Structures are given as C-alpha cells and as structure tokens.
C-alpha cells in the first residue's frame, strides 16, 4: 500500500480569481510581501500494490479524471503508507 499525494493548481496562463481575491485580503491585512496567490486542490489516494506500475496509473487517473489539463497542472509525491 502506498500513499499518493496529488497537488492540483490552475495553470500559470489561467487567471485565478480566488487567488487574486485572497491576495487582496492579505494585502489589506498588511502582508504586502505577498506577490501572488494560487489556490489549488490536494488529493490523497491510498493505492494497493498491483502488477500495474504506480506512476503509469497515477498519471492516467490525473489526466482522465482528477485534473482538467486544459486549465490545470498537477504534481504528486508517493510515500510508503504506514500500516497500523
């Protein structure tokens, strides 16, 4: 069993209105240092070991369903899941 942590963000070329609104709030609060805010999604998958290569199926799942590659980018990390 492994844990796959997937991070999804809007592509650089796509305007992120939520991020802009949050940045505006941070500036109002006095955090003028913040130069940009991008809001994304975080997904955690527990994946059983199988004969299929993990990288291949994670990529497939990301590109078919978990992200829309027209507007989103993704990256992921894999960890050995701790068995209790």
């Amino acid at each position, binding site marked *: 069993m492994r844990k796959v942590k997937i991070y999804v963000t809007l592509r650089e*070329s*796509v305007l992120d209105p939520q991020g802009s609104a949050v940045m505006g709030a941070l500036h109002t609060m006095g955090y003028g240092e913040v130069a940009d805010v991008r809001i994304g999604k975080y997904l955690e998958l527990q994946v059983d070991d199988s004969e299929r290569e993990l990288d291949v199926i994670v990529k497939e799942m990301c590109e078919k*369903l978990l992200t829309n590659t027209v*507007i989103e980018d993704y990256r992921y990390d894999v960890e050995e899941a701790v068995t209790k």
Partner: protein
Amino acid sequence: MKFAVLVFPGSNCDLDMYHAIKDELGEEAEYVWHDTKDLSGYDGILLPGGFSYGDYLRCGAIAQFSNVMSEVKKAAEAGKPVLGICNGFQILTEAGLLPGALLRNKNLKFMCRSVELTVENNSTMFTSEYAKGEVIQVPIAHGEGNYTCDSETLASLKANNQIVFTYTNDNPNGSVEDIAGIINERGNVLGMMPHPERAVHEMIGGTDGLALFKSIVKQWRESHVSHA
C-alpha cells in the same frame, strides 16, 4: 422529432428542457437516465443544466464517465444534434466533445439574471431561425461559466466560425472574447451557458430561446421528412 433529455444525479433543468420541447415546441421528449446504454432511438440529445454529481471535483468532471456519455459521443459522431446548456456545456467540454473549459466566474459570484446575447453565427442547425447579429434576451444562472481556451484553440474557433453566441454588452463571467456558446467543427454539438429553455414563454419573461429549438427541428425535418 424525438429528443432525449439526459438526467444525471443533480441535474435540475431537465424539467424546463422537457417542458420547452414537449409543451412549447410540440415535439417528443423523454427523460433518459445517465446509466442508459442506448440512445439510438433519439434524433436529438439534450444535456440540461444543474449540478451533476454535486459539481464535485470540477463541474461536469464525473458526469463525463457516465454510461450514457459514450452513447452521446456516438450520437455526435453520427451527426445528430447534441445540445449542452450550462452544466451540459461543462460536461461536453470535460468529455472533449467541445474544446476549452469553464472556469469560476471572474467576479466569484453566482450570476442569475437575464442577459443579452448576440447571435454571431446563424448558419448552424441550432441558429438558422435567428438573424445574424440578432440580439436576444436569455437568462443565465451559473457560478462557473467563464469560458477559456488556449490561443491556438481560440484562433481556430474564430477561423471556423465556431463562436455562436457572445454576451452583447455586459459579460457576466469574464469569458474570453465574451463567448457565451460555441459549436464543434462539424456543427452538430453546441454548448452554451445561457438557458434558452427558460425563454420559451411570454409568461416567464420572453420567447427568444424558442427559435433555437425550432432551428433544430427545422433542420431535422428538412433532412428526414422530405425523403419520406
């Protein structure tokens, strides 16, 4: 002409669509549940608005893998008219039947009001009953209708006349080039954020949406009934 009104868990404009076809247009319509595996008996496919699968993950993302969607792809390949309104438009882009994607409205608000649309292309099977450049009043109700696509896609949409409707003066969602509705290259799959099915009776604020459905029926009659 017989229409399928697709129903996904969370669809909520299916009744309006059914009413527009059955009562205002006087054509046949049936509700078709999302796990249906055969759409061959229908002449036109309608994907209504709503919040399919609760808009979880992304609007339309989960609905694209419903059983019925492979049938919608077959119908599109066969040249049948496929119309996606609001969430239906989002599903068609997620399924790859139309290019681009719908983002959160630029002002982050759910917009629910009437808008003016310009008919940019009246030589489609969905818009032949409008005049080119005609301005019509149709309601919108969406939070994620901000159409976007890369610059290459935009150039090809323009070159092929695939931008069918634009917001006339007041773009409610920040869409690129004020796009409100686009059609596929072949000209039989239309997606739009505004709701023509809610503009089919004077009592509910206008009838400007009716010509869209009449156009579909007219085209179908011309290509089917005349050969009978």
